[in-house]
């Protein structure tokens, strides 16, 4: 038999890109502004023990569709810090204060948080998930799945 039967190199080739019917994404090349300026404000609010305000700033300032992976990871870590800082008893009020857009972004952060669990984070996130779900319904979860521009 040919020696090549054990070779898996062909699996690393993306043949779909050569298909002439391939769907070409509409490249909205507007580079979304970085989250930078808000980071300091949010960290200072966290230090000042005002996590709910930090949350509002975080969600209104969050930009979706950033291509830079490092920027996305930093924004996720920041979001997790804010979400963990808010106690279970404060979650209801926090969610009630948000508007619909922010709730959708919050749900996106919650699901991203589920992807990278730390000790104790998933349990807290589950409480968040339940509270946001009662207000925003299945629609917000559907939007987490369908929106191409991820948080």
């Amino acid at each position, binding site marked *: 038999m040919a020696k090549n039967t054990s070779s898996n190199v062909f699996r690393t080739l993306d043949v779909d890109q050569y298909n002439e019917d391939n769907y070409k994404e509409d490249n909205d090349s507007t580079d979304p502004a970085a989250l930078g300026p808000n980071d300091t404000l949010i960290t200072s609010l966290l230090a000042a023990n005002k996590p709910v305000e930090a949350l509002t700033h975080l969600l209104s300032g969050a930009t979706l569709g950033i291509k830079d992976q490092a920027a996305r990871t930093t924004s996720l870590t920041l979001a997790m810090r804010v979400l963990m800082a808010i106690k279970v008893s404060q979650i209801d009020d926090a969610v009630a204060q948000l508007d619909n857009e922010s709730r959708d972004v919050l749900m996106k952060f919650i699901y991203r948080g589920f992807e990278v669990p730390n000790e104790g984070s998933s349990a807290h996130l589950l409480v968040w998930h339940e509270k946001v779900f009662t207000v925003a319904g*299945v629609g917000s979860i*559907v939007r987490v799945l*369908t*929106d191409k521009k991820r948080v």
Partner: protein
Amino acid sequence: MTTIHKFGATPISCHAWSGNRSELALSHNSKDVTLYNAKGQGWEKTAVLDQHDLRVTGIDWAPTTNRIVTCSSDRNAYVWVKGPDGQWKYTLVLLRINRAATCVRWSPEENKFAVGSGAKIISVCYYEKDNDWWVAKHIKKPLKSTITSIDWHPNNILLAAGSSDFKVRVYSGFIKEIEPKPSATPWGARMPMGNLMTEFSNSPNGGGWVHAVSFSPDGSKLAWAGHDSSISVADAANDMLVMKLKTNLLPMCSLTWIRPNTIAAAGHNCVPYTFIVESDAVKLGSAMEEDKKKESSGKTSAMDLFKNKDKLGQNELETKLNFTHQKQIAEIRIVGGQKGDVDTFSTCSLDGKIVVWNLKTLAGQMKGLKI
């Protein structure tokens, strides 16, 4: 009140009513189209149209000319005409596409029809008398992906197409061989064949296939349902303003206008909802059915309780939904009245039922119903 018509347990993927509403054509997600005639309380099967080789994806019945057009995954469309002997005669329409056809609609004047396909092409077909066949003209640019739904504008020229590239486009389907030049509309003045009049993106966040599109009865507004659980309405008379409502519900699969400013939409929620269109926003009206929560019968016997716990790991057996439809609704069709002034409409669903909803009696029964 709702009238339930059961047609077995297999999903009904598409259906269409005849002009006088006494006949019904439907397809059970298979390659056959079955025609039924209303007989007393039930339905009598009159004919089976089985020329297609693959699953039928769309049926449309022209009310005045009494012609049926069906399109299928086998890349073909057939036009069926009823002969004087009562038999349905078919004519193959060469769509010249190399992927499945997904949806088909007759134009308001029934002299042409449009077929959407997975080949990123809309075929607008008209009848050429000299050669006695249906000719297809293609609309290609700038479609990037499968067309999922099509709706004609009341002026018989403009055509809206929703696609899985997350966009809704309004095209001109003007065929100069069969009709006079149209006058200007809020959507634009120049309308050569295949001209893109406007394009709308479903979401600024980039996602959501468009499941259904529908022009308002006067043609100035265009509503669409996206897979991101949203309903959007674009108003051409108001400078192409797009009003979007992100709902808390599951996505809708089909919609139509029941009043000049009210939309009825249905989909994965298994019950139709109304949406009110105001001058600058779309608001959720109400569901057309109340969640009939059965009070749990006082004493579930201890034996049943443990039997269920043992067999299923649950305390109660609750698999039935509290709505008329048990599975998602595939299509909404107007039965009584016309777009903008609907008395009754029907929904077909994957549970094998077609339910006819009567708006007048529903409004009387349900106090919360907002139309």
